């Protein structure tokens, strides 16, 4: 063999992996999901507060990319850092799909589904969605609002509507009343976190 530098390459690969993981975590949706790192075992069980148990085997998510030998020769490490974006997009896509599939399943089971039968996304739709979800607040009383996950075209449409909604005093009042209601619900939930006889 020709002279090589395997320890340096190992370090480079570790850094690439780290940047890849960071890139996936920067995703606005995936960054809101808690990560667990398990060092052993082949399964995961969640025992919920109500005693129900959900079991899951680990699912493999991977991204593949082809890199030309010519690019390796000409660009060196850059050839791999450039492909990192491609791989992270693929991983993000698979993770998001998996996430949305699980969320959809959970929502359907809980009956938390709003079907507007193809009608345009309106302020009323938005309020109906907020009504159905649990909202937590921080110690300063600021709402920790959920993320709204929509297709890019719909995101553009909603983005254009938001300033109009914000200028509508009635809408603002309705929104504030809903948030206040959610705050009371949160407060009641938190008050139930206690030891009893």
């Amino acid at each position, binding site marked *: 063999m020709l002279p090589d530098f395997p320890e340096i390459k190992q370090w480079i690969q570790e850094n690439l992996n780290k940047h890849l993981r960071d890139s996936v975590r920067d995703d606005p949706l995936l960054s809101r999901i808690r990560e667990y790192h398990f060092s052993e075992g082949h*399964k995961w069980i*969640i025992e919920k507060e109500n005693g129900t148990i959900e079991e899951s085997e680990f699912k493999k998510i991977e991204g593949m990319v082809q890199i030309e030998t010519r690019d390796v020769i000409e660009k060196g490490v850059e050839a791999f850092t450039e492909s990192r974006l491609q791989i992270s997009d693929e991983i993000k896509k698979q993770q998001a799909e998996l996430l949305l599939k699980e969320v959809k399943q959970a929502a359907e089971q809980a009956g938390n589904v709003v079907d507007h039968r193809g009608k345009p996304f309106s302020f009323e739709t938005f309020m109906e969605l907020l009504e159905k979800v649990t909202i937590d607040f921080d110690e300063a009383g600021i709402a920790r609002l959920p993320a709204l996950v929509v297709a890019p075209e719909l995101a553009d449409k909603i983005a254009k509507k938001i300033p109009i909604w914000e200028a509508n005093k009635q809408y603002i009042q309705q929104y504030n009343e809903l948030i206040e209601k959610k705050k009371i619900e949160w407060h009641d939930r938190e008050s139930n976190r206690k030891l009893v006889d």
Partner: protein
Amino acid sequence: MIERAIENWLTNTTERIYQIPFCQVLQLEGHRVLYRSTHGILEQGKDIVTLTPKGDCYAYQLKTGDINLNKWRAIRGEILDLIQLPFTHPDVDNKSLHFSFLVANGEVKDPVLNEINSLNQDNLDKNRNFSRLSVINGRELLNLFIKAQGSFIPVEMADFESFLGFYLSDGKGQLYKNRFFKFLENVLFKNTPSQPSIAKNAVVSGVILTSYTLRQFQNNKNNFAQFEAWVCLAASIVRYANRLKLATEIYVESLELVKAEIIECLTQLHQEMIAKGNFLEGNIIGDGGILRGFRKIMVLGATSALQIYLIATQNDYKADQRLVELIKSNLPFDFLGECFFPHIYWTTRFLELCGENAIAISLLKQLTEFIIINNDPNGRVGLANPYYCPEDLLASFFNIRHGKEIDFASFNGSSYSLGPIVEMLVRRDQRNFLEGHWRKISHMEFLSFKPETEEDLLTFSCEKGVNITKFPKMTQSWSALKDDALSAKDIPEIVKSNIHLFLLYSLVCPHRINTSVVKAFDLML
């Protein structure tokens, strides 16, 4: 190559170190060990006393290095005790003479051999009813060890590399426990033997293999690493025995020797800690601060565990009060990772044992608050879980490229130790404290791992097993909490029947300590 390694070790070791593997060699030849001296104190000139399969009593005095005339004159008094004084034991027939052996890991020089021959002849001529002295020198000892090691040697290249890694290390640092467990498993315990005798050989070989593998750790008196290595072996033996459903007599003598070695290492650690007092070690540059903080927790925890072990296993043992003062003067602890939970646990137990309940409870409460604050679900940097050892944490803090990278954000919202600590506080009737903190506690996820088979609790890492995430109840009944905390039904059988081993094991594999194991400790020790 292995023979060379054994020879290299034997030539440079001391009688204290080769005593245990020598006992193993004797047991492999069918001897029953009746007595073994500890802490270098000879009884009646005897380090080891055994009963052979024929019922003869054999007594051994072990020495380090060559025996020349000067040394012979220095030990002559002990030798006379060896051959003249009978050994009193219910199983020993004192009407028959015992057999005496001077054992040295070096050479017994010719002038000394002549003296021994003269001594024996003189006793015979004058009809003195004294035992005849024989000699086992370094060369014979080496052959005995090589023969006893048998076929249980590293053969695969990867295992040989592991062996060399340990054998050639400078012996001053931490033991790579996961690697050591794998090494023992691959070389000794991986296969299912066709006969119990092969299983016995595997166990015996393990003791000898471990002895010389730890050569450099022994040379540097790295008692902590030695303690961990012997615990790895003890755990591996019990796991092996449970997996194969071995009869106790196959492995129990070896296991007792290993436990004795563990206790000896911890005792030496304890003595060293008391003597030094400042918890500094090695190169002063870089020491102090957080390194010293970690060392403090590790050593105080291990020596506290030793005290609990001795009190639990020896009727007349009195706790060392100097340790209480040392603990008190070294609070607070830097609890910067969940790998330290077992150390803090044993420290609090020892304090409770010595009547310092207020301090013990205060420690537990501080720990609870620390975990709740640092692992807050909305926080950014949590306490590393117990799978990350102190060295991993230090490498991360000092930004050193080393082993595993730690993603501190992934620890927020969960904890491996909070569940056990909550139950501890319940058992100690700390309702008010828990009430005041329940809101925050109920936001945390309690994590644990359950291997597929019970015996896999006794290995560092397993492929098959379930990672469990449990959400505590928002509204929790105190009486239900108390019932759970006091119920022994979820304690695994292997923990109940090996509680003293698990006491020691908890310090080596902190990620194996879950609610049911801590419950076993609280209820059974």
